[in-house]
């Protein structure tokens, strides 16, 4: 929530009192929303687990404990048992949170960096720029997204990218996913452009860039935050689905999608191996969806 109050403070310079109370009202509505708070608690715990994965995880996620053996059930040493190559399932689950959260959050940051300039330029740059950028957006929209991600992922396979296949996946998801966000930014800015306070800012001599950055950007933040929050579970889904199919993050890195895949191969012997990562993915996606729902309800001007 810190982000919202920050932008509120940075952005609303003129009617400061009213603006702060608008964001504060949203914050209050958000705090009252039990599902959203539940989602926030789940996500916060996941972030902690992911950041301190090395400390929290009882074992090295890639260490093979062949003394215990493969596909063993829960024991004191391995609380959730071992997988098909004698690795500790719980530790892999914990490290998998790292991958899912990084993909979910970083991809949305990247999407913001692509979509914001394109959307803003389309709204503010005159008809020709608008037409060109929006036709380009339409073209990209027609691309079947998961197929494009798979192709991009394969293209970038041999390219040396810092961060390896994790960054490749994030890049591929962002390059495909920015379109809807860019359209939203454009729509927001077009409607804000007609508002009185923007005209007023122009009248007192504020330039185009200043008007865009100081007056319009903070005011289009609400819907943008909502749509990016909903983008997080979609990105987590894309990564885990691709890792499940085998075109995601390269093994032996522990990912939930990859764990579902390897567990699926042993589903008749140890069905629980598939259930743990499956539940982890579903719970994480649900938590972000709850937060998104809560933010939307809190920021929706119609409920004001």
């Amino acid at each position: 929530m810190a982000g919202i109050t920050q932008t509120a403070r940075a952005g609303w310079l003129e009617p400061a009192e009213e603006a702060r109370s608008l964001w504060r009202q949203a914050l209050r509505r958000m705090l009252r929303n039990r599902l959203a708070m539940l989602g926030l608690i789940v996500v916060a715990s996941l972030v902690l687990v992911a950041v301190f994965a090395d400390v929290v995880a009882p074992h090295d996620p890639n260490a093979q404990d062949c003394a215990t053996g493969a596909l063993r059930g829960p024991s004191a040493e391995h609380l959730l048992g071992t997988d098909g190559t004698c690795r500790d399932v719980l530790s892999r689950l914990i490290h998998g949170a790292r991958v899912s959260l990084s993909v979910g959050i970083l991809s949305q940051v990247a999407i913001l960096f692509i979509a914001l300039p394109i959307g803003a330029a389309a709204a503010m740059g005159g008809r020709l720029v608008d037409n060109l950028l929006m036709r380009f957006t339409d073209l990209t929209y027609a691309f079947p997204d998961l197929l494009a991600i798979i192709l991009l992922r394969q293209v970038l396979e041999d390219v040396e990218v810092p961060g390896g296949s994790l960054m490749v996946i994030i890049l591929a998801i962002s390059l495909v996913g920015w379109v809807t966000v860019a359209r939203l930014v454009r729509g927001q800015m077009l409607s804000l452009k007609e508002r009185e306070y923007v005209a007023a800012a122009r009248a007192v001599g504020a330039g185009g860039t200043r008007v865009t950055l100081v007056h319009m950007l903070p005011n289009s933040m609400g819907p943008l935050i909502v749509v990016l929050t909903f983008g997080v579970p979609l990105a987590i889904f894309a990564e885990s689905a691709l890792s499940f199919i085998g075109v995601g993050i390269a093994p032996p890195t522990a990912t939930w999608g990859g764990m579902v895949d390897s567990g699926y191969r042993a589903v008749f012997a140890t069905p629980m191996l598939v259930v743990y990562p499956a539940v982890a993915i579903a719970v994480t996606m649900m938590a972000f969806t709850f937060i998104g729902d809560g933010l939307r309800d809190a920021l929706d001007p119609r409920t004001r």
Partner: protein
Amino acid sequence: MLAMMAFVLRRLLWLAPVLFFVAVVTFLLMHAVPGGPWDSSGRPVSSTLERQLDAKYGLDEPLWRQFLTFSGNAIQGDLGISFQLQGRSVSGIIVDGLGVTAVLGLFALVFAVVVGVSLGVLAALKQNTLVDYLSVTFATLGASTPSFVLGILLIVVFGVQLGWLPVFGWEQKWWLLPDPRQAILPTITLGMLPAAYLARVTRAAVVEVLQQDYVRTAEAKGLRERSILMRHVARNASIPILTVAGPLAASLVTGSFIVETVFGIPGIGKQFVTSVFQRDYGVIMGVTLFYAAVIVVANLMVDMMYSVVDPRIRT
């Protein structure tokens, strides 16, 4: 009406640049993928043979000329031949896969509409009761469970633990129709997300209509509840429901490849995944172009639907 036809025509003309753009990008991407079609077949190919194969299929020519050849043939409906499946044409592979994907998608759509709309209506009519809460819970769970997770959980429960249903395969028994037992789990898996989505949209739409003045008027006139529901509520609430049906149908086609991979169903999506691994260039191009066309047409139908159900929206 004339304006409508002009609109549809303009949007259909738009299909040409879209397909061209998708074709160029896919072509470049696919050739940028390391490796070629000959080194994935399992047996290593000598460099002499590789050159001969390249020459035979025109892969030794510059990329732009290959693209021109492909485009020229594609416009005439010839997507070339598969590099991996001996003697199969790409169109044939797509048509076969499409038969499977379309049937699965249709099953899933029926499942989604029946389950989603009835749950949504039920929840709206019995607002804030147990029925409502259960239906909202179902919608929330269904919307945030990825298809492959749901599919595998269903496999674990009904295939492995209970042993009721087969977990793999799709044999066409009667023309395009599979063994119904094989179809149950994939249908639920693919249909769950749209069902959850439809339940949400339907509930919201019906709740909104129920609060309208004309419903209260109808009640005040003493109309029977049944006829209020059929005449006034159903007709008006169907507007938002119909408008989401288009993208949902498109998502059933383009989103099915994960479900197809989980259940080993030989649909068009599974063909695509296989063809990327095998660098089967023709199949990659064909499937991507087909999907892009589906997306454009689905969006066109959505926009048409908007202006038909709500005349205030100008096309």
